[in-house]
């Protein structure tokens, strides 16, 4: 298995001003030395609660933020070392589909123009060829040809998300970042889009970075999952194994908090107390220790490193 993309020790820190008049500056470690790999044709799921850094990770992968440390390697080459044409190629190979298809499509553009825009700006393509490509993509995402000449308001949420997917595919990318692609959609439509994404993956050999808060959807879509908490990866591994037997206390709590799919599966596990602390002043040692039921004195002082545990990576002193 080869990784199409690999992040090594990737960090993104933001400077934050405290108080009205500046004063002491804090640093938010939105993403703190994380490493992951997206295998060719696979889906890497990222889960975590607000403030865990999953969106910043997506932005780093998309090249919308520059890392404060670490590197991203794409097809074996470091992004930092790429020249301008190389970076342009990278941007073409990595595309995104966002959460809200009502916000991500320009209401004044026709569908054909929306889908063709990346093609027109990135490549010298003649008009008939552009049109041909647009119709081909509409067919691929399951929309009728006549959609090309309509405007976004004429489509429902699910259809709009199909249009957003078609736009992401127009440059034949290798990696697509899916940031909560079905959260804004109705329940009966979600399955349509998830099925479409899966079939596109097998047909086109795409790799996905899938970010969502719906754990069952992530487990369904992903081959590997990374779990993040306050900018750090606390556990990563094969999707099903991780979902069915989480190891890190946070992963356990997170999956225990997931809603059951049948009333008979109601769990009586105690609910994790407290809230995610402010990323401006994360707890010392292991960031999770104030909420962790198994925390010891060591957890407050020493941050655990990710270590291999039964074919998985877990960052917890319990597993040393």
């Amino acid at each position, binding site marked *: 298995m080869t990784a199409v993309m690999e992040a090594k020790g990737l960090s993104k820190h933001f400077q934050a001003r405290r108080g009205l008049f500046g004063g002491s500056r804090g640093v938010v470690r939105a993403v703190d030395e994380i490493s992951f790999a997206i295998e060719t044709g696979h889906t890497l799921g990222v889960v975590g*609660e*607000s403030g865990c850094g999953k969106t910043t990770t997506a932005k780093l992968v998309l090249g919308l933020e520059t890392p404060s440390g670490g590197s991203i390697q794409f097809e074996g080459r470091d992004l930092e070392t790429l020249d301008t044409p190389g970076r342009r190629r990278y941007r073409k190979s990595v595309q995104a589909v966002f959460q809200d298809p009502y916000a991500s499509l320009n209401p004044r553009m026709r569908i054909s123009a929306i889908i063709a825009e990346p093609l027109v700006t990135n490549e010298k393509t003649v008009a008939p060829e552009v049109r041909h490509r647009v119709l081909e993509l509409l067919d691929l995402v399951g929309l009728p040809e006549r959609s090309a000449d309509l405007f976004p308001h004429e489509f*429902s949420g*699910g259809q709009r998300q199909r249009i957003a997917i078609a736009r992401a595919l127009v440059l034949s990318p290798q990696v697509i970042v899916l940031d909560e692609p079905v959260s804004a959609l*109705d*329940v*009966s*439509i*979600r*399955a*349509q889009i*998830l*099925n479409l994404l*899966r079939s596109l993956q097998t047909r086109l050999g795409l790799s996905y970075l899938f970010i969502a*808060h*719906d*754990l*069952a*959807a992530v*487990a*369904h*879509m992903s081959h590997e999952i990374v779990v993040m908490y306050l900018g750090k990866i606390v556990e990563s591994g094969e999707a*099903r194994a991780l*979902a*069915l037997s989480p190891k890190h206390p946070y992963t356990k*709590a*997170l*999956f*225990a*908090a*997931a*809603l*059951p*799919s*049948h*009333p*008979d*599966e*109601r769990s009586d596990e105690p*609910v*994790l*107390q407290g*809230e*995610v602390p402010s990323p401006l002043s994360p707890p010392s040692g292991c960031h999770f220790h104030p909420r962790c039921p198994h925390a010891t004195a060591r957890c407050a002082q020493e941050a655990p490193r990710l270590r291999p545990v039964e074919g998985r990576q877990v960052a917890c002193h319990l597993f040393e």
Partner: protein
Amino acid sequence: MANKLLSLENVSAHYVSQQGTRVVRAVDEVTLSLDAGETLGIVGESGSGKSTLALTILRLLPKAARIVGGRIMFEGEDLVDKPAAEMRRVRGKRIAMILQDPMASLNPLFTIGDQVGEPLRVHEGASRSSAWQRAIDLIKSVRIASPQTRVAQFPHEMSGGMRQRIVGAIGMSCEPRLLIADEPTTSLDLTIQAQYLDLLRELQRTHGLALIFITHNLGIVAKMCDQLAVMYAGRVVEQGPVSRVFSQPLHPYTKALLGSIPRMTEEREQLTAIDGQPPDLANLPAGCSFAARCPAAFARCQVEAPPDFTVEPGRSARCWLAAPTVHASIDQTIPLSRSAAS
């Protein structure tokens, strides 16, 4: 049915355009009931009429909408023709509601104490200081630490999860008999959502409160509810005890909805997707409104809307397949469709 806390009988609420030319049947002939202390989940997609149903029960419909038929019996009284002044004494006192967005339901200019104490002052004539004291107890009861300091703070000083608890405290302030929660946890993180649902459970147990959960999330229903009503295009298409409906759904829509959610416990290549879109409520098809998307539809479904068939006590479905004469098997429906076509 005399001991039911709330029972809706054939309630319809329609939105009518100014010229009266367009009628949107947002809630159409809904019959439901709820016992004291019970939890009812109302599930549906956007536009299925579930939120309008909640507003109908509270008589808070916008101007363009009106209740066009049916009775809403609450503790033996019909809410439909209650005068507005009396209705105001019911809302917040005997029936409370929690909305989706806690930031929108709290006033940013008033302290938490003022807002939690407000229903007490309005409904029970409590003095400012006693309302403030009771607000502190209420804030404590929704498990917020250091209620003495929190009571004097403003909404912006709290996290989303805490704000939603405050909204819960306001709802509980007059010890209502019924609490209607409209998507109460959609804006919350997973672990915070679990904490909140836990809290609602506990409040329900300690106060003998009946709950109506309005949600699109079947997981919440599976976790929290005793009874389930599935809404589609303004109608309740299926209702019954939660575990029965989840194990043996009668209506093809319920079946498809349950099949469309990914599950952690099983590996499936494909989810059952429901093709197409829900119909336009202002222009409903002649027959069953789900017929166009239904995998089991036959000729009769296109022309005649099925009535609510009671399959067993407390369990019903609006589907011809649930009719007593036709057993829920697609094979038997084929001759029916042939005879109808010829």
